[in-house]
């Protein structure tokens, strides 16, 4: 009975985090972007500095007509947003937040599971792009596929480097083995992982698949109302997952300079999310060929070099 209660609490906590954290990141993006550009951002919804802007957006989305184009592949079109969104919920359950059992569910193959799930999220965009029967959506979908091909590999390689350092693929195990000098040791891997993750989420400057000035909104062009909202939610949930994973794998998760606890995980995740927003404001969009070249000629060799470095240091130390 206590077991069932315990599991219920954990599932509830994961679900609430899944609904709440992306909204916080979204609101932060509104405000941070605005202030970086000398604007105020949303100010009226909810009264205090427009804190309820995304709630208002949600209400608006729920009231909009749901349009499925006449030419679309209806069933695939309808379930695509769910396919894009749910993997990120399932990833959150495996991410350790604090020491001890402050994790939705410790999985032995945690790292492996997490990477596999994140790959599934991209399928949603592919399905949407194909099912829309719109040339621009199709282009967006094909670009999404090309981007996945290019950036999944450096992501896997840099994650493998951490698994080598810790000697385990369990996320909890990786954090248990963490030492502060892992941060400078794995810094190249961290950069590769974070960059590749950004590209997989189509965040600027890697937002070629949704380049609004040339292919409208890529795979999401035909979506309206609630389904469009779910795609947006998936993007922000993806940011939360990517930042939390980078914090756990490369920045020591709950280990802090002073003491340790869930506070550090959240702080690191929030700082990384800020960087994600900052990058969006700072960099122009990469062209498709620049984007591919960057992955294969910079990130993949860098990740391979990191693996070599990790291997040598690890064998010398042990």
């Amino acid at each position, binding site marked *: 009975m206590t077991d069932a209660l315990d599991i219920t609490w954990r599932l509830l906590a994961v679900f609430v985090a899944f609904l709440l954290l992306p909204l916080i990141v979204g609101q932060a993006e509104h405000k941070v972007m605005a202030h970086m550009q000398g604007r105020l951002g949303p100010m009226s919804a909810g009264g205090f500095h427009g804190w309820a802007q995304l709630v208002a957006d949600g209400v608006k989305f729920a009231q909009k007509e*749901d*349009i499925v184009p006449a*030419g679309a592949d209806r069933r695939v079109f309808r379930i695509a947003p769910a396919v894009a969104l749910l993997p990120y919920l399932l990833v959150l359950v495996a991410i350790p937040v604090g020491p001890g059992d402050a994790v939705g569910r410790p999985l032995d193959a945690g790292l492996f*599971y997490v990477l596999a799930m994140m790959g599934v999220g991209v399928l949603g965009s592919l399905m949407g792009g194909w099912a829309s029967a719109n040339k621009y959506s199709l282009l967006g979908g094909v670009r999404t596929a090309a981007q996945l091909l290019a950036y999944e590999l450096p992501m896997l390689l840099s994650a493998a480097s951490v698994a*080598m350092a810790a000697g385990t693929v369990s996320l909890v195990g990786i954090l248990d083995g963490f030492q502060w000098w892992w941060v400078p040791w794995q810094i190249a891997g961290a950069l590769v992982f974070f960059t590749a993750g950004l590209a997989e989420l189509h965040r600027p400057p890697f937002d070629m698949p949704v380049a609004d000035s040339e292919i409208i909104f890529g795979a999401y062009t035909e979506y309206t109302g609630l389904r469009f909202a779910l795609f947006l939610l998936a993007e922000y949930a993806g940011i939360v997952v990517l930042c939390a994973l980078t914090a756990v794998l490369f920045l020591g998760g709950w280990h802090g300079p002073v003491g340790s606890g869930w506070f550090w995980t959240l702080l690191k995740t929030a700082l990384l999310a800020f960087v994600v927003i900052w990058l969006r404001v700072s960099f122009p969009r990469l062209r498709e060929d620049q984007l591919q070249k960057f992955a*294969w000629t910079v990130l993949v060799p860098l990740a391979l070099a990191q693996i070599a470095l990790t291997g040598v240091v690890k064998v010398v130390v042990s």
Partner: protein
Amino acid sequence: MLEPTVRAATSPEVGPAADYFQGYTVVGLLAVVGVLFVAVAFTAGRLLRPEVPTPEKLMTYECGVDPVGEGWAHTQVRYYVYAFLYVVFAVDSIFLFPWATIFADPGFGGVTLVEMFIFLGFLAIGLLYAWKKGVLEWT
């Protein structure tokens, strides 16, 4: 033939395999929660939103101009070799994970490291070959 021996060896610790899969029942439960969430959201949305379809509204949106031809145009996807490259690399990198967990354990060490460099060498040569073949040129 070997299987009974293995089972006998592990059975005193209340079946590790059962433990292993129990972790994923929680994941399964969460998946059910997620599917329920989406189903409830879509059903509630159906009750809340208006529905007034017109032929113009259901037309494919291509910058406001009436669409020409079909959406599923016959396009030549040019990155077959490139996709092939990805598959080879991804499968290789998957093999890194089990190796990564044991390579520094007692009894491995130096020799395993040399093996890794041979492995990385293969990957690097593959990448250089693809580069030279022009697979990584886009303009």
